[in-house]
């Protein structure tokens, strides 16, 4: 196709229609293929994601074997506001024998290197039952010690120390009522902010 020729056909309405139709047909064919693949995989992916969340939630409740979880609760403005600067991701109700036994609250706090996605279990009395890290990008060798629940100078795992804390303890602060891992104060502070937010959200939930 020579350049002069190209310029001419560009003006031609028939050519423009041809372009449109070709692109449209391609898109339709590709979309149809994707629909097919999606139909095969959707159910499986759903199941896998559910299982993953379930494992993360089970890790933070007091009695993992007998606990079942509700679907995601709808987040209210009040809950999001309670979390403050920490992002509230999702809230699930934990049930033991059909009775409400607290909540599993997923929050995203800021660490020293990026976001820390964490699941916090809070029982019906508003006491923390467990903290687990879902995803993080903290510095390997320093911040990662917090993520893997290494013991602090006090000898308790840095994540385990939150168990038993409640809103009655006041705002949790590193250095005051939370011990940091030496060298990883910022990461510990991030996790502490996440727990504070989760407790505040649990307070709204009642």
């Amino acid at each position: 196709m020579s350049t002069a020729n190209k310029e001419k056909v560009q003006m031609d309405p028939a050519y423009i229609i041809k372009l449109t139709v070709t692109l449209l047909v391609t898109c339709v064919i590709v979309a149809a293929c994707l629909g097919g693949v999606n139909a095969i995989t959707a159910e499986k992916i759903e199941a896998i994601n559910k299982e993953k969340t379930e494992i993360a939630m089970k890790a933070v409740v007091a009695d993992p074997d007998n606990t079942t979880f509700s679907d995601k609760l709808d987040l209210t403005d009040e809950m999001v506001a309670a979390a403050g600067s920490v992002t509230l991701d999702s809230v699930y109700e934990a049930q033991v024998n059909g009775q409400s036994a607290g909540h599993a609250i997923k929050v995203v706090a800021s660490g020293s290197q990026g976001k820390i996605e964490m699941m916090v279990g809070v029982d019906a009395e508003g006491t923390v039952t467990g903290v687990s890290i879902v995803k993080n990008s903290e510095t390997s060798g320093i911040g990662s010690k917090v993520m893997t629940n290494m013991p602090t100078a006090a000898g308790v795992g840095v994540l385990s120390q939150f168990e038993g804390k409640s809103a009655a303890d006041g705002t949790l602060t590193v250095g005051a009522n939370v011990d940091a891992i030496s060298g990883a104060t910022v990461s510990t502070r991030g996790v502490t902010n996440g727990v504070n937010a989760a407790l505040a959200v649990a307070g709204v939930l009642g």
Partner: protein
Amino acid sequence: MTDYKNLKLIATSSPHIRGSETTQGIMKDVIIAMLPALAYACFNFGLRALTLTLVSVAGCVFFEWLYRKLMKKPQSIQDLSSVVTGMLLAFVSPVQIPYWMILIGDAFAIIIVKQLFGGIGKNFVNPALAGRAVLLASYAGSMTSWVDPAAGKAALFGSNVDVVTAATPLSYMKGTDPAALAESFGNLTSTYGVKEMFLGQIGGSLGEVSALMLIIGGVYLIWRKVINWQTPVAYIGTVAVLTFLFPKAGSSLDWMLYSIFGGGLMLGAFFMATDYATSPVTKKGQLIFGVGCGLFTVLIRYFGSYNEGVCYSIMVMNLFVPFIDKYTKPVRFGVVKKEGAAK
């Protein structure tokens, strides 16, 4: 091929090098200038300071020899620059890090940073600082625990798990909460007086603790005309002014003195920021370079997540050197500023 053996550091028109001086002679002076600080480190931390430095020097020389041998290039270890790199890397490391660790730093500094870019004079950041940056990122735990000189000397052999660690003065000066910071700075001033800070009876990297010894070495280098006063004075001056004007706790004077005597500022200003290959060639450029280093150091110390900013600020400024050189280059005689001149 260039004869590296007799290569003088005069790849550019460095005004601070005399024609008769050889790289080897300059490096010898730098080594002599570092000896007081090394002697003090031995007194402060024990003989391990000496053995660690020797291992590091041996490592640097070996890697330089090895690379040159494997690449079939003329040997360059006679110029002693790798000895200086080895000493500097040991100086910026905690005294109790395992010997194998400093060898990894040596290998990185010499092979990747220095030789891959063409050897002496061609590296674009300071090899010792790059080696330290790699060690810090890789072994953060070991690289940030410091032997407490008051509690005993570091063991000559064995690992670093048993030493009594001390926080460096700078770690007391870090924080965002004013009340907590005021308290910890108060603790610092009551633990160490300004005299201890100046002499160096404090925790820290091997060669950085004694401001006095480093100043002696620095003055020697200036007297021998190996370095110009511009970079160190601009660097330390900038940090002094900024910390005096914006103290985060305590009195302005105290905060300033602890800021310039704590950490690696003296070592960095006299021995790292003046490295020929990675600093500007003109005196005006060196002033700008020093001010930039000081600015970044204070910014990192105040707002960064590390306690100490000397290492990174010098490396960052190293990267600016080509631009500084470009804009501070003296105009050649007879050249008219180009104004619409035909290109």
